[in-house]
């Protein structure tokens, strides 16, 4: 661009007369060949990446199915209702694994959701600010600029800490479960078993690894997913909704439970579905904590096994026939995850439609 000298007013029209061509050319020129090529290349790359992702999923499914085919032919649907996995006799059934996968995931998810959503509400609804403010008021520092920023800082710190949970490797969770969670829950489990043993949930004694420790660790593993996405959803609720509720005389909790949570429900639900996906596929931590015993029991203290743990445990030493059966099991796990995601998407869409008026 040519700088326009502003010292003389008379020269300006002269400049305008001589320069319009150049001026126009610099601002609005047709895209060069290079621009067009770069544009097309980027567009092509984006399309290729998008389709590549789809292709990889299809490829994985096809490959797994290809290897599983002999097992699918040999064992049929009975594979999913069989309860024995015996490589020596080549008898394969995965009902205990399906049960264990769903049972631990659901318990983990329920616990994780309760805590995750509670954390999200705490971090998004200014509870921290209120309590910090109350304490500061006692000391008379409430107006001090550094202390006024304190709640936001603590909130950010908590959020980062929470998200750090997602960065901990699964095997560390497994070890932590063995050395911390199991000894921690053992006295409670023993008490519940001796005093309330007639309830099927507490029907067996805890031998160490089992459904409860596995589910608790799963709950912690899905916590960052649920709390982070739920918090974002709660923050995204339009402030006018909160203000309107307050204006109509709702208390803080009435506003949160009656207006804000329902408005953020789709986001929260989405976080739960993502968490469920994570819980279903979790492998190493569960292989270390579930006990890998082929049993179906409603007791929280019984050992169990999961599909992912079965794959991790048996794959390295499996012969050809067992590999087929393992791939069949992998296919079942894949289908369960897919069903959960599709179901989640459908419910999400319905919920979204119901809340349209709010936005």
């Amino acid at each position: 661009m040519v700088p326009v000298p502003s010292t003389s007013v008379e020269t300006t029209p002269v400049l305008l007369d001589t320069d319009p061509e150049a001026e126009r050319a610099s601002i609005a020129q047709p895209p060069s060949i290079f621009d067009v090529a770069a544009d097309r290349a980027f567009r092509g790359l984006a399309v290729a990446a998008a389709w590549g992702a789809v292709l990889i999923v299809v490829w994985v499914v096809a490959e797994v199915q290809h290897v599983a085919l002999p097992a699918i032919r040999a064992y049929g649907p009975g594979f999913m209702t069989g309860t024995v996995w015996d490589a020596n006799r080549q008898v394969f059934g995965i009902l205990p694994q399906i049960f264990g996968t769903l049972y631990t995931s659901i318990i983990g998810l329920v616990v994780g959701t309760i805590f995750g959503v509670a954390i999200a509400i705490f971090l998004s609804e200014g509870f921290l600010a209120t309590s910090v403010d109350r304490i500061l008021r006692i000391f008379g520092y409430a107006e001090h600029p550094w202390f006024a920023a304190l709640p936001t800082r603590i909130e950010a710190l908590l959020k980062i800490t929470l998200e750090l949970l997602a960065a901990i490797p699964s095997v560390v969770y497994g070890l932590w479960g063995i050395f911390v969670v199991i000894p921690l829950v053992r006295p409670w489990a023993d008490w519940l078993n001796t005093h309330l043993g007639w309830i099927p949930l507490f029907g067996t004694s805890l031998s160490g690894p089992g459904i409860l420790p596995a589910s608790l660790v799963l709950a912690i593993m899905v916590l960052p997913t649920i709390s982070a996405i739920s918090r974002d959803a709660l923050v995204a609720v339009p402030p006018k909704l909160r203000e309107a509720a307050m204006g109509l005389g709702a208390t803080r909790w009435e506003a949160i439970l009656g207006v804000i949570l329902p408005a953020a429900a789709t986001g929260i639900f989405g976080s739960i579905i993502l968490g469920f996906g994570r819980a279903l596929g979790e492998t190493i931590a569960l292989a270390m904590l579930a006990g890998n015993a082929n049993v179906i029991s409603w007791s929280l203290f019984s050992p169990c096994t999961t599909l992912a743990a079965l794959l991790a445990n048996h794959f390295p030493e499996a012969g050809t026939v067992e590999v087929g059966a393992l791939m069949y099991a992998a296919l079942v796990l894949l289908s369960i995850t897919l069903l959960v995601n599709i179901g989640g998407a459908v419910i999400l869409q319905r919920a979204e439609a119901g809340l349209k008026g709010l936005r």
Partner: protein
Amino acid sequence: MLCAALLGGSAARGADNITLQGTGATFPAPFYQRWFAEYHKLHPEVQINYQALGSGAGVKQFTDKLVDFGASDAAMTDDEIKLVKDGAVMLPMTAGSVVLGYNLPGFTGDIRLSREAYVGIFLGKITAWNDPKITAANPGVTLPATKITAVERSDGSGTTFVFTNHLSAISDEWKNGPGVGKSINWPVGVSGKGNAGVTALLKQTPGAIGYVEYGYAKETKVPMAVLENKSGKYVKVDLASEQAALAGVEMPADLRAWVPDPSGADAYPIVTYTWLLCYKTYAKAEVATTLRALIRYGLADAQKFGADLGYIPLPANVVAAVTKALDQITP
């Protein structure tokens, strides 16, 4: 392929470097790693990579010719050998034992288990530590009523094979029930991944009992049960009882000797040889000669490292037989 690339690379440098690639059992891995490291110290031009992926993977990769040698706790069967185009030589390199580690809080001293007792525990028929079948073998000792939790290996493993092979040899009920294999459909108990996983569960679970490789149990200081052997004597695991177990074994010509239930009076009952799998012919002459030198060193000087790590040094007759079998490996 990797091996070839490495060989190519070293040839380009003009040195005489050679790399051997091996895969297989985890059971003898600490011994192998020590042996290969010591050999590398003496012969810096020889680099040996051993990946302890498990006996099954060892046999598979050996058959597919992905490695220069394999290793397995279960010697290859005749059918498996037929699939190896270049011919297979199986060389027992060391032996080891499987022990029953336990966790019984408040109990010190050695617990003695009869054959009936430990088969019964893993069949799920004996469920408490004060079961008469256990107390009968432990006179003068008060055992708590703690519930027994059997701990097993969840992953396929040569250790499981050795242990179940022994159980099958001493109990028809086991033989006709769960049977022998690298992974078993266990009637009771919980299972952990690898020797490390089993040991962690043993240490964390009061009342637990599980089978672990001896070297591992020794290193992690897990209390080990005293077991009844074939002649009815209760034997503690140590070098003397392990050597007694191997002493009575005739080594057949193909070096595949099974010891599911050794008969010596002082023999520890659960021992096994573990094998190195080599091809009969190698395309590269230097690979064959290096491998032979390596194994010769393994049979002689390296045996003492094995003893340090909890393995059983090979008896002299076995060393002689293996040395003779080395001649089968030719370029």
